[in-house]
């Protein structure tokens, strides 16, 4: 059996009285493409934030490539790249400058920088626009650049938090092609969340479904269908999570802060 590269054991994240993540455990194998699915507010983003050192778990243990995420933060940070749910480029710098800054922050050796940046920008078809300011880029171009940037320090794990949100079909297909190639050719582990179940079905080798901060089930698409007696991932997903819509702890943007805000609001009332 391949070794685990991401391990979560009984991870809890509590914002006041609200348990955003309620004792989840899972393993992701080296080189695997792993999808994390769940309704809005289920705890997906909070989990990614804990995995990527942005939030500290209340209890439990998280490991990336053998490094404890809270105790060996810097090693853990070097092991992954991330494409955030929200845009995270510096708008007033050029594509090349954004890449260069990232290379410096991750201590990519000077001699290799230029070549790596060029290779990656060519891969995402942005080399010809390398000197354009990000503010002139479309949503799809930004996403592609973010992916290229996330790969610049050659991470072992790539986190993608709803990477295809707001992208057109062409760009989405292109993006997933890159991702598959990375997994096949470089053995990179991919951990992603999405609301598009067809994507998850097509790309993910294994899927975890999370709801109300708990992992309901984990398995391949076939296993999930078998488990629920359904034919597609979507049918299986709806059967597991119910077909009613959810409110997040607070309406508006989708991040862990919502819970804190909700808490603040209830305290005010």
């Amino acid at each position, binding site marked *: 059996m391949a070794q685990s590269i991401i391990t979560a054991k009984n991870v809890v994240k509590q914002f006041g009285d609200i348990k955003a993540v309620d004792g989840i455990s899972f393993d992701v194998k080296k080189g695997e493409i792993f999808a994390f699915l769940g309704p809005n507010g289920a705890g997906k983003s909070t989990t990614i934030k804990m995995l990527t050192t942005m*939030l500290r778990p209340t209890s439990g243990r998280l490991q990336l490539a053998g490094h404890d995420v809270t105790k060996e933060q810097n090693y853990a940070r070097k092991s992954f790249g991330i494409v*955030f749910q*929200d845009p995270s*480029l*510096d708008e007033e710098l050029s594509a090349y400058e954004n890449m260069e*800054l990232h290379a410096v*922050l991750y201590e990519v050796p000077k001699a290799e920088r230029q070549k790596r940046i060029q290779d990656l920008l060519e891969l995402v078809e942005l080399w010809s626009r390398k000197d354009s300011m990000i503010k002139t880029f479309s949503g799809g171009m930004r996403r592609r650049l973010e992916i290229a940037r996330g790969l610049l320090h050659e991470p072992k794990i790539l986190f993608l938090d709803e990477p295809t949100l707001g992208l057109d079909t062409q760009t989405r297909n292109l993006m997933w092609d890159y991702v598959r190639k990375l997994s096949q050719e470089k053995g990179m582990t991919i951990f992603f969340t999405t609301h598009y179940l067809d994507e998850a079905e097509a790309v993910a080798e294994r899927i975890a479904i999370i709801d109300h901060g708990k992992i309901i089930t984990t398995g391949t698409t076939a296993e999930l269908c078998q488990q629920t007696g359904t034919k597609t991932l979507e049918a299986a997903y709806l059967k597991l999570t119910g077909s009613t819509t959810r409110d997040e702890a607070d309406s508006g943007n989708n991040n862990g802060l919502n819970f804190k805000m909700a808490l603040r609001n209830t305290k005010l009332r």
Partner: protein
Amino acid sequence: MEVIYALWQRQIRRYYRSGSRIMGTLGQPILLLLALGYGIGAIYKRAGEGDYMQFLVPGIITQTVLLSGIFWGVIILMDKRFGFLSELLVTPVSRAKILIGSALGGATVSIMQGMLVFFISMLLGFRPYDWLLVVPAFGLLVAICLALACLGAGIASMVDDFQGFQGINNLLVMPLFFLSSALYPLNSVPTFLRIMSSYNPISYMVDALRYLLANQTHFGLEKDLIVIAVTLAACMYFAVNRFNRIQM
């Protein structure tokens, strides 16, 4: 070291690419120099106090770097709101380094603004008392700019929205400027104003610059330097403390 340089460079690039920001923060000091320097100058002279422009310019330079420093904090707020801060915070670089690099960049921007105002005031008739003292004056300006950039960064770390930041401007920048020794000599104002100004670190920054640029002082350079050093340390502590608490 390279990390700090890269973060510093980012701030400088953003500054020279934004012509509107340069003009925006220069408009106010120029207006103040014209309206007060020339408008009040005549009366000031008649009252036997000497050349008001000489008195005013160090105050306006301080006001420029105060405004520029606090408003530089907006970049941290923008990074927070528009996502770039997430990128910075998950890198293997410590928050202290991120803050130091960025704040040095912010301070450099303020220094350039302050120097621009200095040269503009030369065009308007200001003459430094002794050109040799202009060098230490700019040296001191570095410390002042760093303190104020840290203040701006600390405040930006605490607030979450741009309206809130506007409020800070009205609540903090204006009183700090008007209730200081920037505009009027402290020896002839009512006691309450003198007391308030004496508790305002901006007064000491103005006073030190005024000593070096115009050979006038109220508190004495020694006291000025002590207050500036303490203020710098306090602002740095405040910035690190607040920046470390940012949760994404």
